[in-house]
């Protein structure tokens, strides 16, 4: 669908070689930190921003040079962008009126959309008389009434409070599944991305880092950035050195000495003697009962969440967070031993950040 599109603002490359094919009826989320080019990418797909290179196809159609109105897309904006001088009904009907549909048909479609979103009772109100959640529903209504080929959503939930956001998140996902319309959704919130997406596009500095379904992204991150961006708390990184010893490869630093799993050997052989980064998710690190286990750590902070306890520790020079059982209650300053589930750990190239294993 997007073929090597690129956007430059002067000399600054905002989006570089954005090359993704999105399947019909798929829910794709573009996620990344602010300024990573995700909104710009979406706006190029919408036609609100002209790409400086590459082509965009919707369906079979090349739309690169078409204005937004000829792309058969609908967009939901972060600020809702409801027309303040029109009531809810007219807001939703606006696009249909522009297409000169007969008024009975407009009426039927608007009421249908309102029904789906549960906004029938305030069709006659003006946007300013609605709450944030209601406005968001109207904005959604304005999109679905069009029955477009593609939904584009630009951080639609970021103006809502946390509780409403979780609720709307589920509603949008359900709505998308029900209508079966291809959706591209931009957010900076990785939880939103993980919960809603069929596939996630992770972007950083205008470059796609990885495109994968949520579980793959979590289990097999392509690089250190993806590993740190997806998951809360984020993956822990421990700088260490790879050393071949008699019983296999060891990952060593001043606080840790971990034996790499045997199946890694082939891939890591080339890095023998080099500095690497070990990545272990918080849930794959646990406090050990042994007097000497894989790593020694000092407890920095204990966060009790009820269902689990997050323990911030220092492993040598690196900070890490471990997810422990709720009954585990160390005190700050304790020296503890940690055990890593190396089957689920990752090894990253220290220089490039790319994954080795």
């Amino acid at each position, binding site marked *: 669908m997007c073929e090597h599109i690129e956007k430059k603002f002067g000399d600054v490359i905002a989006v570089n070689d954005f090359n993704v094919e999105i399947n019909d009826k798929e829910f794709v989320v573009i996620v990344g930190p602010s300024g990573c080019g995700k909104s710009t990418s979406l706006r190029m797909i919408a036609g609100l921003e002209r790409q400086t290179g590459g082509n965009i196809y919707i369906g079979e159609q090349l739309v690169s040079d078409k204005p937004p*109105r000829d792309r058969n897309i609908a967009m939901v904006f972060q600020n809702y*962008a409801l*027309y303040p*001088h029109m009531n809810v009904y007219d807001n939703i009907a606006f696009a249909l009126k522009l297409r000169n549909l007969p008024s009975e048909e407009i009426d039927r479609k608007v009421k249908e959309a309102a029904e789906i979103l549960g906004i029938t009772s305030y069709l006659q109100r*003006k946007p300013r008389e*609605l709450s944030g959640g209601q406005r968001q529903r109207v904005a959604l209504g304005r999109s679905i009434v069009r029955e477009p080929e593609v939904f584009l959503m630009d951080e639609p939930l970021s103006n809502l409070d946390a509780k409403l956001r979780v609720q709307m998140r589920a509603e949008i996902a359900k709505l998308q599944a029900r209508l079966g319309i291809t959706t591209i959704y931009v957010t900076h919130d990785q939880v939103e991305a993980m919960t809603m997406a069929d596939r996630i596009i992770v972007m950083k500095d205008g470059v796609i880092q990885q495109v994968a379904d949520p579980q793959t992204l979590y289990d097999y991150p392509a690089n250190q950035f993806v590993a740190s961006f997806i998951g809360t708390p984020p993956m822990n990184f421990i700088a260490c050195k790879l050393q071949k010893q008699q019983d296999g490869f060891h990952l060593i630093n001043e606080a840790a000495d971990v034996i790499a799993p045997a199946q890694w050997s082939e891939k890591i052989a080339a890095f023998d003697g080099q500095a690497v980064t070990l990545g272990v998710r918080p849930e794959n690190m646990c406090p050990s009962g042994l007097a000497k286990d894989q790593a020694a750590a000092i407890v920095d902070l204990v966060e009790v969440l009820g269902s689990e306890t997050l323990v911030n520790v220092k492993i040598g020079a690196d900070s890490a967070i471990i997810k422990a059982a709720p009954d585990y209650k160390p005190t700050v300053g304790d020296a503890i031993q940690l055990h890593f589930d190396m089957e689920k750990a990752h090894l990253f190239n220290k220089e490039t950040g790319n994954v080795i294993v």
Partner: protein
Amino acid sequence: MKNESLLSKILWGILVILVLIPFLFPFLWILSASFKTQAQIVAMPPVWIFTPTLENYARVFVEQDFGRFLLNSSIIAVGSTLLSLVIGLPAAYTISRYKQNGLGIFILIARLMPGISYLIPWYILFSKLRMIDTFATLIASHMLVGLPLIVWIMVNYFDGLPHELEEAAQVDGCTLQGAFFRIVLPLSGPGIITASTLSFLFSWNNFMFSLVLSAEETKTLPIAVYNFVSYADVSWGPVMAATIVIIAPAIILTMVFQRYVIKGLTMGAVKG
């Protein structure tokens, strides 16, 4: 606490009166003089209690045909304001959306130069075209001020409108022009009213351009006041009555439209 608030109210009141005196006193003097006879006006000490006379107004409308001057002024003021809107609104929108600040400054240059410097070239130009004393000429000349005024007020106004609204309209199926007419203009009421009121008032009160470019056919109110000034004397009563005739529509206009300049009309469009 209560004393303090009373004191502050009194101080506030005094302050308001102090500010109002320089503005209101001349107006009140004009108003009272328009109902006095010539002798009462020039009397020293001033006459405060008198029997009002409508003779001055009679002279203004019967002797001098102020009705026609009123119509002339209206045609020119409304015409120049409307034309300025037709040209100025799309111009302002373009400057705002495409960040053509250079163009904006270029338009402002017209306003920065003293108006009087245009008069001689204009006079030569329009007389060669045999267009002196036509409405077209006067409307065009008054647009010199109205147009930059409207452009500059509206650029700021458009800058303040959320861009997403037009983008949403474009996605919904509008052309850029369609978005301008269907979304931007309906939301620009307060800005348009403010700019139009100022443009209208400028034209209404303009003396210099009309003095040079108009004659009998298109004589406007401010010029007509001069009809009461002769070599021998100044007929103060009719002058004051004529002044009131000029001021009254301006004041009414300002008061009526001030109510429409409601801020926050865009509330609810984006975050509320």
